[in-house]
């Protein structure tokens, strides 16, 4: 296991940010999902050693997160959510500086800085002052500094925030490239579900400081419920009430099409039986593929 945390608790004063988080992550790209205030950033900060958990324990690459922070930080890269840079520096100096702080020899750090800046697509502007960079360039630069020392694990905190669609697509491509072909494990914290769905195969959903669900996205989608898209003619409200009696859930989408969530232990024929008993006509019935958004809404209980 590369990351293993057990019963992690952390509070900011009276506010509980993490309330007994257990998590085991191995290789690949992992998405950390959760609504605002769920504890995603706090968890990343604890893993980085910025915050010390009040209870619980954790290990990264078999190193203790409380007592071996320095060693852990040699193996990890961190791309923060906020804009962060050092004024007066160009991208090459900045990246090589952070490489040196990671323990790289000076010349190696400089050479490597050129390489990673080229990799993230900043080769033409690598001698420009960072103050003149656009949001997209700053995101790329943050990614470059996170991977300059060739870490085994990279924490990406909202990597696509503030990017236009093209920039977002390019950053996601880079993340996928890093995580799928380069033996680097990536932990992405994001509230953009499609980003996680696109880049990760494994997901941890946090809610109110607890792990609400974790596992392979494909597995989670299947075990939680069966999803059908249907269109009926009749009293929709009554139909919804009837479904609720069997612990089903209805979500209305465009043009009268409803997403119907049926518990895994229920036969889909129950929908037809309800329709028959109440004289509804089913005019459209398709088994649908649940999206991460559906899974998230189902797990966290938000619309």
């Amino acid at each position: 296991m590369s990351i293993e945390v057990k019963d992690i608790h952390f509070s900011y004063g009276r506010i509980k940010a993490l309330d007994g988080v257990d998590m085991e992550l191995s290789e690949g790209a992992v998405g950390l999902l959760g609504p605002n205030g769920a504890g995603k950033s706090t968890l990343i900060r604890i893993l980085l050693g910025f915050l010390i958990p009040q209870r619980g324990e954790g290990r990264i690459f078999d190193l203790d997160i409380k007592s071996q922070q320095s060693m852990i930080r040699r193996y990890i890269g961190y791309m923060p959510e906020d804009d962060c840079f050092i004024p007066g520096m160009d991208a090459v100096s900045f990246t090589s500086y952070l490489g040196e702080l990671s323990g790289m020899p000076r010349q190696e750090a400089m050479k490597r800085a050129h390489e990673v800046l080229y990799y993230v697509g900043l080769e033409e502007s690598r001698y420009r002052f960072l103050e003149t960079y656009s949001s997209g360039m700053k995101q790329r630069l943050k990614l470059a500094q996170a991977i300059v020392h060739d870490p085994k694990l990279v924490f990406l905190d909202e990597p696509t925030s503030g990017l236009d669609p093209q920039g977002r697509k390019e950053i996601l491509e880079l993340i996928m490239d890093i995580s799928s072909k380069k033996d680097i494990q990536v932990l992405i914290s994001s509230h953009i579900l499609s980003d996680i769905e696109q880049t990760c195969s494994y997901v941890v959903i946090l809610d109110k400081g607890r792990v609400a669900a974790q596992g392979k996205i494909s597995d989670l989608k299947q075990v939680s419920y069966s999803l059908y898209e249907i269109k009926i003619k009749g009293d929709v409200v009554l139909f919804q009430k009837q479904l609720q009696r069997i612990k089903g859930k209805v979500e209305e989408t465009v043009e009268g099409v409803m997403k119907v969530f049926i518990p895994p232990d229920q036969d889909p024929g129950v929908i037809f039986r309800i329709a028959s008993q109440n004289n509804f006509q089913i005019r459209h019935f398709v088994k649908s593929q649940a999206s991460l958004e559906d899974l998230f809404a189902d797990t966290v209980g938000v619309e």
Partner: protein
Amino acid sequence: MSIKEQGYTHWDGELAPGRFPWKPITRYGIKLTFKRKFFKPFFFMTLLPAVVFLAGIFISERIQDFEFMIKGSSTPFTVNPGYFYTYFTSVLFMIVLILVFAGSGLISDDLKHNALQLYFSRPLKKKDFFTGKVAVIVFFLFIITLVPGLILFIMKLVFSGSFQFVRSFPWLPLSIIGFSVFITGFFACYALFLSALSKNRRYVSIMIFGLYIFSDILFGIFYGIFRKPYFCLLSIKANLQQVGKLIFSQKPLYDVSPWYSILVLCLFCFLAVLFLSHKVRGVEIVK
């Protein structure tokens, strides 16, 4: 801007923490300070007092060559520990100006641009971070305190052509080193503390300069009203002068024990360190 065809390649080197992980912080800190507008000419200007005092030593040793200038007075001044003390206290104001350039942005820039999380996500401890920042100040302040102090001492021996001066004041090199270290240590805490107070380096510059001047003015006002020398403890400059007098075995400038000044300045440094260790961390916690 497209992603280039060249893929990501692993680095085959070995990460070694090194004996001085703070060295890059110092190197880049010094480099960025020299890049600041007007800093280079100003910095060289701060070396002028050293040149003047060096000329003073030369003149005092070759007094017969300059008789036509001094007209009657056989010894316009003598080079003794007091002479070195005068050099150090004459550069105090220069030191404050250097701090405005070199010290104001050391932490405030990192706070403003959220750079602390970049430092602390590396295998860097707080003490490494502070050592790196302090070393920037040490570099600049030693150049105008310790280095000229020792050079003046050596040049005194060279110009006099004997070791009589060393025999008379064998402790003087230690005093020079001691006072340089004391001044530098105090001003390092002073600059870093003020730099951590604001995210705006301009405000910090004003505070570095203003607090030094204001504390002296405050002392002047209270001393003028109450005529109590103890008010010298309010002034940064007066406290440093008192400490200088003690280290160079001179009579105190004010009728107050210099140990009180040492206490006041050390207390300031202690509080500054406490504040800094609380303020500077990888993540800002808002409770």
